[in-house]
């Protein structure tokens, strides 16, 4: 097995109440790790901890590359266009951004199609594509996606899944917190988070069955 790019060792995290207890997991380059769990099970908290936004109460998290975190809510400014939002987070020029959006795997997200549209006029799918593109412009090695398919239509879902596959094939590592069975089919491994603990699900386990157990 390749050296892990993300190592989570015995991580516990308390936020008002205990959210994570003694969680351990690893992810290598090119792996897609699924995080499954009910609402409030700690999936988003774990992603925050991996991104570096939250410090674990105990345990260690080691990352061997730059992380990009696409949160469940989009960190976009409604009054500005897609291009203005992208420019906020990158030193790249307009031309360079357009080149990135059309000449790399980011083209799958089709953000250049609505580059001059204001965020407030965008659909949920367009916003999610833009949020991912905005994070990807910083060229992360590890991509953390929190509920990336929530409330999206089928074409948007398909494009995002296609993008995840492409990102993985380029050697990127992806962590996905989701409820979507469809998405877990694309994961190398899936962890079930229950009562603050993470359990690696055996291959072939249905997420629905795992949640009901």
């Amino acid at each position, binding site marked *: 097995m390749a050296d892990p790019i993300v190592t989570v060792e015995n991580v516990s995290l308390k936020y008002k109440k205990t959210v994570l207890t003694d969680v351990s997991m690893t992810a290598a380059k090119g792996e897609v790790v699924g995080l499954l769990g009910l609402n409030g099970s700690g999936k988003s908290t774990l992603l925050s901890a991996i991104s570096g936004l939250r410090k674990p109460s105990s345990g260690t998290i080691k990352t061997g590359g730059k992380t990009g975190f696409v949160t469940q809510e989009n960190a976009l400014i*409604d009054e500005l266009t897609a291009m203005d939002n992208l420019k906020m987070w990158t030193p790249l020029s307009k031309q360079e951004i357009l080149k990135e959006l059309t000449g790399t795997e980011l083209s799958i997200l089709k953000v250049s199609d609505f580059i001059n549209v204001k965020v407030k006029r965008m659909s949920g799918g367009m916003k999610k594509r833009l949020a991912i593109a905005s994070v990807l412009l910083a060229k992360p090695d590890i991509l953390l996606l929190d509920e990336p398919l929530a409330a999206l239509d089928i074409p948007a879902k398909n494009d995002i899944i296609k993008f995840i596959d492409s990102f993985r094939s380029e050697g990127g590592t992806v962590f996905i917190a989701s409820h979507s069975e469809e998405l877990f089919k694309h994961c190398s491994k899936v962890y079930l988070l229950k009562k603050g603990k993470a359990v690696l699900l055996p291959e072939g386990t249905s997420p629905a069955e795992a949640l009901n157990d």
Partner: protein
Amino acid sequence: MIKAYCKRVLLFLPYIACYFLALGIAMLALVIYASEFLFEDNTDSIVSVACYMPDDDVYNRLGLGLITRMESVKHTVDINMVKSKKQVLSQVESGEAIAGIIIPEGFIEKMGTEEAVQAEIIYRDADTYEEHVVNDLIYTMSDLLGTTQCSILTAEELARELGEDPYGAYLVGYDVQENLADYILDRKDHFREVSVDDLVAKYGVRDQLTASYTLFIIMMSVFVISFFFKGNNTIFRARAKLSGIKTWKIFLLEAGCAAFMMYLLYVLLFIVFIAVFHTVNPLSLITIIPAILILAMLGTTLCYIVKSPAAVSYITFGAGTSLMYLAGGLIPLDYMPKFFQAAAVYNPVYYLNLFFMRSMFL
């Protein structure tokens, strides 16, 4: 990021303009009419006028006796003799007297000479039509007082001279008539209108209301500007943190943008006040900046703590309106219960209000 925020400010300007139109014009109408509501009660009954005469002589006593017996004065003005100038000012300032008359020492003796001194008519700022009428009456009354005093002086001089030398009496009579003619022709010069606000209070009711409503409009603008901080939620801050941007930098950037928008609002209000009242201090365009910066910082802090624009609007309206009311910003403290007046000094908005007043009307 700075460019993006500048762009957002430009995009927000139409909202600020709409807010100004909606609230600013309504407040301006209130400022114009509020003082009339406040003064209305004083004008239907006999008004009290404080009068100070240092020379308790026959001229003054007869003059005063004559005018107080005049029908028009008797049913309108209650002349209250006081013992000092200070008492006149105090009674006018407190509202106990609607106006005051201060007759200086040697008023009669020095009249028509190079040492002539002016009597002062102290009045409160007349804001209603009825008050203007009363002020005119007081002015006329004072004028009559001077005329009467001169007439008595003439009669006395004539009587004395007639008893001794008819020719001398003619000469004295001629001189006194000349003096009397001078007095009548130039009688306006013998009196001086002085606003009590110029002597004991720095600001009139209208100034107070204009300043406090301006502050109120700018405070409430946090409600409009709060939408500007929509992106500034936990997620936005997290994103900034991951991109290596410090939270305090975003705070300062947003506070700066908010201050600019609030300042723009003040400039709009300033233009209207200059057009309507002609009295707002142009220097306030500079001196108001620190207060606006404080308000912008507070507004931004509120938006950082509360996060949801709806909650910001509840707090701004709820707490802002209450604090403004308790600071005497909506109704002047003079017209509020004593308890509220005492409590106002503990209210930070009271000092902000004073700052606005001093800045706008110094």
